């Protein structure tokens, strides 16, 4: 009873504090003649955003959306790459090969102990900017143009029927998954080899190819060609984005590697011994016995690293990649109210983080050990 009373009192206290602070803010803004509302979001942003169709005449709210998309682009790709690299390095740290083991250890100890901001700035000024300038850009087989203004690779351009074709590709994916599931069930029932990746892949390729022919080339490939200072065609990976991505991935992967190593070591030794007794190869032992069990242990701390990576992406301000924090900074600097802009920024990061937590929790629950 007393405990409940304390809890209620605490919530009331927090609420009162919140109310006081908000009231204080509003009064003070009004006294200084600064706007208290959010009307400014409809004003034109006035700035250009690189690699985006955004125009300066578009409202500020659109600029924030562009920033959010760019943050997500950095985070999602970063999370995927950091996971792959982290697992590789984590496994390498437990390798029986001396060189691999020590190399992985050196990687982890150096990257983990350098601030990620320093890594990002180093990647930008000392690595990415030192690539050949556009006038001496490397061009490989007419497919890739590579300079310190970005990496340009071939990319599809939508033609007529592209939308329908996208639907076909989506359907092909779904069909491939269904076929894969069916093969798995066959395997469970009859023990006949499942080859589910082969089957699924074949379905995907055949359906996509059929769709491509049916819609008479809905997507055409454009090759990058350099004309003076610009590269026409293809899709560009900007140097600022690249520096951010490399920095974030290298840093986060060093943490993930340690999580992976710890989780593998936490799998009971008897499991490894049992796998050895069954004469499984090293890869099989890892793939079918150790990693699946380690995954269950590593997931919660892994989600934590994903959250860190997403939040660390705001360090892109140092290298001028147009993500959420940078665009908010620009908005504030152009005579728009700071308190409201920062509040929006915080809410968006909070939403992103909660979303990642939510996904992690769902995955975690589905992987949890079901004890009978």
């Amino acid at each position, binding site marked *: 009873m007393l405990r409940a009373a304390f809890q209620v009192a605490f919530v009331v206290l*927090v*609420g009162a*504090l*919140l109310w006081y*602070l*908000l009231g*204080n*803010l509003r*009064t*003070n*803004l009004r*006294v*200084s*003649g*600064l*706007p208290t509302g959010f009307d400014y979001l409809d004003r034109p942003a*006035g*700035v*250009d*955003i*690189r*690699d985006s169709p955004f125009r*300066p005449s578009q409202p500020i709210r659109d600029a924030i959306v562009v920033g959010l998309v760019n943050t997500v682009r950095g985070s999602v790709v970063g999370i995927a790459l950091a996971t792959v690299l982290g697992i590789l390095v984590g496994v390498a740290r437990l390798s029986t090969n001396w060189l691999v083991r020590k190399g992985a250890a050196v990687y982890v100890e150096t990257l983990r102990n350098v601030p990620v901001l320093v890594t990002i*700035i180093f990647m*930008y*000024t000392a690595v990415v*900017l*030192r690539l050949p*300038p*556009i*006038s001496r850009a490397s061009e490989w087989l007419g497919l890739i143009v590579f300079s*310190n*203004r970005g990496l340009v690779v071939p990319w599809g351009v939508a033609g007529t029927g592209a939308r329908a074709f996208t639907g076909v590709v989506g359907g092909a994916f779904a069909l491939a998954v269904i076929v894969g599931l069916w093969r798995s069930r066959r395997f469970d029932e009859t023990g006949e080899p499942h080859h589910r990746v082969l089957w699924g892949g074949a379905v995907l390729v055949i359906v996509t190819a059929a769709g491509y022919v049916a819609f008479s080339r809905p997507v055409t490939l454009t090759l990058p060609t350099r004309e*003076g*200072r*610009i590269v026409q065609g293809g899709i560009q990976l900007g*140097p*600022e984005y690249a520096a951010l991505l490399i920095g974030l991935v290298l840093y986060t992967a060093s943490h993930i590697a340690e999580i992976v190593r710890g989780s593998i070591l936490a799998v009971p030794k008897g499991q490894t011994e049992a796998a050895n007794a069954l004469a499984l190869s090293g890869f099989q032992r890892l793939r079918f016995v150790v990693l699946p069990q380690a995954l269950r242990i590593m997931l919660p701390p892994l989600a934590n690293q994903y959250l860190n990576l997403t939040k660390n992406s705001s360090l892109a*301000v*140092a*290298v*001028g990649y*147009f993500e959420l924090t*940078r665009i908010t*900074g*620009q908005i*504030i*600097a*152009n*005579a*728009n*109210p*700071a*308190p409201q802009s*920062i*509040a929006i920024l*915080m*809410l968006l990061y*909070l939403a992103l983080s*909660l979303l990642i937590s939510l996904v992690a929790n769902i995955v975690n629950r589905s992987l949890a050990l079901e004890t009978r």
Partner: protein
Amino acid sequence: MRSGVVGLLTLALALALAAAGCTTDGGQGAQPAGDVAPPGGGQAAQQRQERNLLDRVRSRGELVCGVNAEVPGFGFTDEQGNFSGFDVDYCKVIAAAVLGDAEAVEFRPLSTEQRFTALQAGEIDVLSRNTTYTASRDGSEGAAFVTTTFYDGQAMMVKADSEFQRLEDMQDTAICVLSGTTTELNLASRFAAGRIAYQPVPFEDNETLQQAFEQDRCDGWTSDRSQLAGVRSNRPNPAELRILDEIFSKEPLGPLVRDGDQDWYDAVNWAVIATIQAEEFGVTSRNVEQMKDSDNPEVRRFLGQPGGDDNTVFDPGLGLDPAFAVDVVSQVGNYGEIYDRNVGPDTPLGLERGLNALWTDGGLHYAPPYR
């Protein structure tokens, strides 16, 4: 259900944090007398509201001045690690006028994106950091601009060996620019008006920008002409860089203070005006002592010397010492001296006076009468 409650609490806490974070902005900005980290307590707060910033700066004995630390000639740290430059000298002018000591300044280096927040939050008393006077900054940033100290305009700097002669040649180029500046906005509108396709490459600080420019990340670097000249002069070989002739904006630069404290505004404004007036009267740091005995009653009045029919000292009621102009000119110099020392033709920047000449020489500097 439980996780829902937790989520709600998290959200509430985040909002509280946001509100708290902002309050330091708005809260101190609201009180024109807000000091750097004011001590708590009701009585102190009471006193704070009663006394204006002029009194507070006096009792503190030091002026807190927001400056640039990256633009040679205007605001930078010299070899001895001292802040130096044209804008920095104006901090000293204000300190000399208000406190009688040009060295009683604490400099706060600020980035373009930090500067207005620092001013609004009361972290600095005055911002002297090549800031352009615009309507929206006056209107929505809670800033009050005093007399312009430097009439500038935006220009474009390119590599000397590049083919660009005019802005129109810069089709399909990448342009480096400092973010959060009027320059960035002018760039967007000038290039849109000329239908010149370009890629903006914005940076927070001049140092990263300079590295990117040197490594050919961008083809042009746009900024105020004076700033570009400063950067160019600082290069081992300035001839490698070229500044295009076209000036595509008006950039009146000058110190600014927070809105809503008229006494402080007046003091800062007249400290700045005094430098221009001194040049017009021919009062320099070398001859200021002799000029006190000038036959010209206007000069004697300006320097706070007894004069006129009743032989009294003129006090315009600015809250400054009647002889503040003597402190300003003897310790820092008149406008011409400040200009020549930092950015004039004999400095590495080598900027001619141009628009920054006195009105008597065809420029724009025109001091209101001191009477």
